[in-house]
């Protein structure tokens, strides 16, 4: 009678050939990716396939005709152009105006500076719903009495109220204050004007902050919905989110076209996203939000 072999703990024996975390992460990733995949699949199906039940997961042929059809039958090209004009203009004006204001608040003492800064900071706390009704009235008045191009129902109305933001001013002011003031003082002593100091010394040192502000402003503008919904009613002035919402509500459109338009609206976002993705975690850590 041989002595029984010492039994190893059963748990140790049943080892998976891969980390068990994959068993969690693979289904999670499928759930996260699936809405994107289904969006793209619908956009390359024929309308009949899209309305088939049970749903067709793999279209029999790749049918890209929804894209040109969506561009022809619905003014998605126009929406795209409007969105691009609004977003690019808003980014540029924010970079210029928030730099100027942020620099003034960071480096210069002037009458009422403290009060003005507190007022601007207050707007960061107030939700947009509180300000949107007066903003509508003011924009309408400007369009009637000052310049039609910035009034209600013109894309100018989407640019001007967001041409400078409290967030941008605050963000750049904080960044400017971290720069060593000696360069600026030396340039001033050598006779450079304030604007030259800003343009030639401060801004080149602030490229990380400026590019962050540019990306955030672009995303905000591209995705903005509530204000365009209030300010714009005519189709040829609509931005992409507004145009998509209007066609979805009108029921006069094929889902396949709507999804093709939706994919087109996603493309600029995805480009920015993939370009910036490796900075995400690092930049969050740098803000100190996580308490480290």
């Amino acid at each position, binding site marked *: 009678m041989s002595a029984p072999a010492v039994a190893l703990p059963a748990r140790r024996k049943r080892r998976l050939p891969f980390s068990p975390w994959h068993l969690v992460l693979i289904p999670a990733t499928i759930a*996260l990716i699936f809405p994107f995949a*289904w969006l793209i699949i619908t956009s390359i199906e024929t309308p009949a396939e899209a*309305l088939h039940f049970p749903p067709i997961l793999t279209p029999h042929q790749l049918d890209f005709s929804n894209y040109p059809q969506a561009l022809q039958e619905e003014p998605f090209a126009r929406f795209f152009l409007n969105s691009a004009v609004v977003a690019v203009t808003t980014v540029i004006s924010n970079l210029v105006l928030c730099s100027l204001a942020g620099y003034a608040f960071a480096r210069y003492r002037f009458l009422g500076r403290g009060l003005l800064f507190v*007022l601007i900071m207050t707007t960061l706390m107030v939700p947009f719903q509180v300000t949107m009704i007066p903003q509508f009235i003011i924009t309408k008045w400007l369009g009637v009495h000052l310049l039609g191009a910035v009034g209600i129902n013109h894309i100018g109305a989407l640019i*001007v109220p967001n041409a400078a933001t409290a967030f941008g001013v605050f963000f750049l002011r904080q960044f400017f204050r971290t720069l060593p003031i000696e360069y600026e003082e030396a340039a001033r002593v050598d006779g450079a004007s304030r604007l030259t100091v800003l343009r030639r010394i401060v801004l080149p040192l602030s490229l990380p902050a400026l590019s962050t502000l540019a990306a955030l402003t672009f995303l905000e503008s591209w995705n903005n919905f509530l204000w365009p919904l209030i300010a714009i009613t005519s189709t040829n002035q609509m931005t992409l989110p507004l145009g998509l919402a209007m066609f979805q509500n009108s029921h006069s459109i094929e889902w396949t076209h709507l999804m093709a338009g939706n994919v087109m609206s996603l493309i600029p976002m*995805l480009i920015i996203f993939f370009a910036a993705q490796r900075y*995400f975690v690092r930049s969050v850590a740098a803000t100190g939000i996580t308490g*480290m």
Partner: protein
Amino acid sequence: MTPGAAIIVLFGVVPIVWSAIMSFQRNSLVSAGGTPFVGLANYRQMLHDPVVAQALQNTVVYTAVFVPGTIIVGLFLAVAMNRKLRFISVYRTAAYATMAISTISEALVFIWLFDPSYGIVNYLFSLVGLHQQPFLNSTSEALFVIVIMTIWGWTGFAVVIYLAALQGIPQVLTEAAAIDGASRWTIFRRITWPLLSPASLFLLIWLTINALQLFDEVYLSTSGGPLNSTTVLVYYLYQIAFGQQGSGDLGYASAIAYFLFVIILAVTGLQFWGSRRFVHYRS
């Protein structure tokens, strides 16, 4: 030097005061009868408006499900992704990608996924023997479909915040605990979770502020219906001020907007106050 400040004052500061004044006036976009002061009438009207009560309830229910839901999903995925694995960058990219989609695109896709007749979710339900659901057409389900779509849309953000926080935790701490014989769960419970508390507080406050202002998804997917079951405060005040069936009563809409503002301030203040005992900052 600061045309930027002028724009912020004109479109930011002035409207704060103006809408406060308007909330004490009778003010209509359509009538031309002036804007008489009516004292607290708009606020009193709010107390007796059953739709305001319903909208407040929907907003609270939505926030109470969406915020913890997003935090749990984000924390779970970030913990799972905070390790060296094959394909880890694929997993992380999938989570981050949800940040790239706008609220409108997100809502459109989910309306399609949850379509009662042609949607793939009902198809999957039929595969596992569940009944077909009306989803966004149902008074009891619509708000939760909106919860699901917004949790999905915020997952990337929550994962990024938690991953950044997790990567800031020194491994010495968890390794020392492991050598002392602490189980994985104890290490998470006693070391990781307390060290994540500043990130959790940030997410709690940020997600709550956004949840209380829910609008885009409701506008697109249900228009507040069916039977006001998804009417949230912002959607209701939009309807009053600018909607097709709205009364155009800007005074009343302003009063509701200020009511929302007070709720946001109070909830945020409470969260900060309540967090003092739970949040640990390393200095």
